[in-house]
């Protein structure tokens, strides 16, 4: 007698097992929600019963202050957004160019390689806020003809230079992550080393580093607030002014909420991209 052969797309799950795993899933969900709820209650009780809570509530979570300051904060935040939007593409361009110059092997381009290496070493080694101070106060003081003395200009330039060094390293890691056999295959087809970079290495490198690049840009969104030290009224500076005129810290909380509203979606997006690219690489196997 022949054993019956199931069809190729037949899926069979024992109804008892299915029912049991469905029950377990339901129970797990309930336990999770209950645990989370209990945790929140404990935190609220602990914070609410602390002796300083009333004072903190008044100075940090004042509803009237919040409503009063929030429109001004949002308006000031538009400057942060503009700094970010201008800085981001410049950072990408500088990062890519610097990373590429560090991979060129031709001896004629040794100066380029030296400059690129020095740039990365210096700007990655100095705290961003220090670069902002140095450029923001130093460059205008030089009073060079044709060089702007605008604080927003130099603040943005400092962010671009600082992040450019980081992003250059991310790109360099990405270029290193493309297996040498890809270069060999491209060269064996007669592609020049420039063509190999342009058509084979860089497209894969950029795809590999998209998640870490997004992380750097989340970080940049927040660091636009550092430009405040030079005086331009962006969201942190606005909050600072409001705070000191009313002796109430609620505007700081408002500014934090604005940043969070922008960075959380971006973080989720970066996570999603990372998971997706990891899955892609797994599925890719040996190529």
């Amino acid at each position, binding site marked *: 007698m022949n054993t019956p052969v199931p069809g190729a797309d037949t899926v069979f799950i024992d109804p008892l097992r299915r029912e049991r795993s469905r029950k377990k899933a339901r129970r797990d969900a309930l336990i999770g929600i209950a645990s989370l709820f209990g945790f929140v209650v404990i935190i609220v009780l602990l914070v609410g019963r602390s002796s300083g809570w009333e004072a903190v509530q008044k100075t940090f979570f004042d509803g009237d202050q919040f409503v009063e300051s929030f429109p001004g904060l949002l308006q000031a935040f538009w400057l942060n957004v503009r700094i970010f939007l201008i800085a981001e593409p410049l950072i990408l361009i500088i990062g890519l160019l610097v990373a590429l110059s560090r991979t060129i092997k031709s001896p004629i381009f040794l100066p380029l390689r030296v400059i690129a290496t020095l740039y990365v070493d210096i700007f990655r080694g100095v705290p961003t806020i220090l670069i902002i101070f140095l450029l923001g106060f130093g460059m205008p003081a030089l009073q060079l003809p044709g060089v702007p003395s605008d604080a927003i200009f130099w603040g943005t330039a400092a962010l671009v230079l600082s992040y450019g060094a980081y992003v250059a390293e991310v790109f360099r890691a990405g270029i290193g992550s493309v297996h040498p056999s890809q270069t060999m295959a491209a060269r*064996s*087809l*007669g592609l020049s080393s420039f063509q190999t970079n342009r058509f084979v290495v860089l*497209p894969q490198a950029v795809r590999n580093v998209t998640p870490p690049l997004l992380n750097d840009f989340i970080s940049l969104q927040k660091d636009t607030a550092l430009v405040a030290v030079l005086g331009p009224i962006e969201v942190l500076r606005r909050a600072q002014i409001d705070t000191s005129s009313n002796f109430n810290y609620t505007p700081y909380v408002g500014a934090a909420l604005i940043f969070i509203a922008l960075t959380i979606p971006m973080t989720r997006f970066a996570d999603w991209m990372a998971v997706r690219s990891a899955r892609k690489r797994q599925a890719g196997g*040996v*190529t």
Partner: protein
Amino acid sequence: MSPKRGSESFINVDQVWKSFDTHPVLRGISLNVAAHSATVLIGASGSGKSTLLRCMNALETVDAGNIVVNSELDVTAFNADLDAIRRRIGIVFQSYNLFPHMKVLENITLGPTRVLKKSKKESVEAAMQLLTRFGLEAKAHDYPDRLSGGQSQRVAIVRALAMEPEIMLFDEITSALDPMLVGEVLDTVRELREGGLTIVMATHEMSFAKEIADQVCFLRDGIVWESGTAEQVFESPKRAETQNFLQRVN
């Protein structure tokens, strides 16, 4: 320039040395390959098969010696025209090395459009013709991750063929494959052999080597230990090391 038909040394490898750091891989290796013939390199891993193939395509520079094609193209010359060499000598690797971010068709047309400067239309037509010839036309618009190992390797062969080489080098092209997929790749090589391409192939597939080879070279420690027709080398090997090797792989 077309190869001299029947010439006994279409490819002339003469006293080639190559070492990596202090480790010698090729130690004065010499061999001749006739036009339109198939030469099969056998030997244990580390005997220098892959390195020799890479030197023949100028993917590696030699330390000493010469490799000359058709008595006019010196692959090992100091100022060798790499483009010309690679246009005339194709290579396929063990690990396929398809470009994962390009569709099959793009993988194949990259060389013809960027190196041979053919029009997009012309290279796509030629690529489709090759894909159809090897039963891969349905995969033209897939990415490499949708292909089986055998299909990937056949696409890699088609990609090299699209450059219309006179010589094809195969570097253990079936070693990474599921045993069930080896046959389809070897069929492809067989067809190319019948089409008159000059083939140099490193392989561990002894029965295929017996069938296809005009010349078999047994490599050991970076030199040709023994060479001859398939019959000579497989049926009546002269040297003890060759006999030993053949016993171990059979």
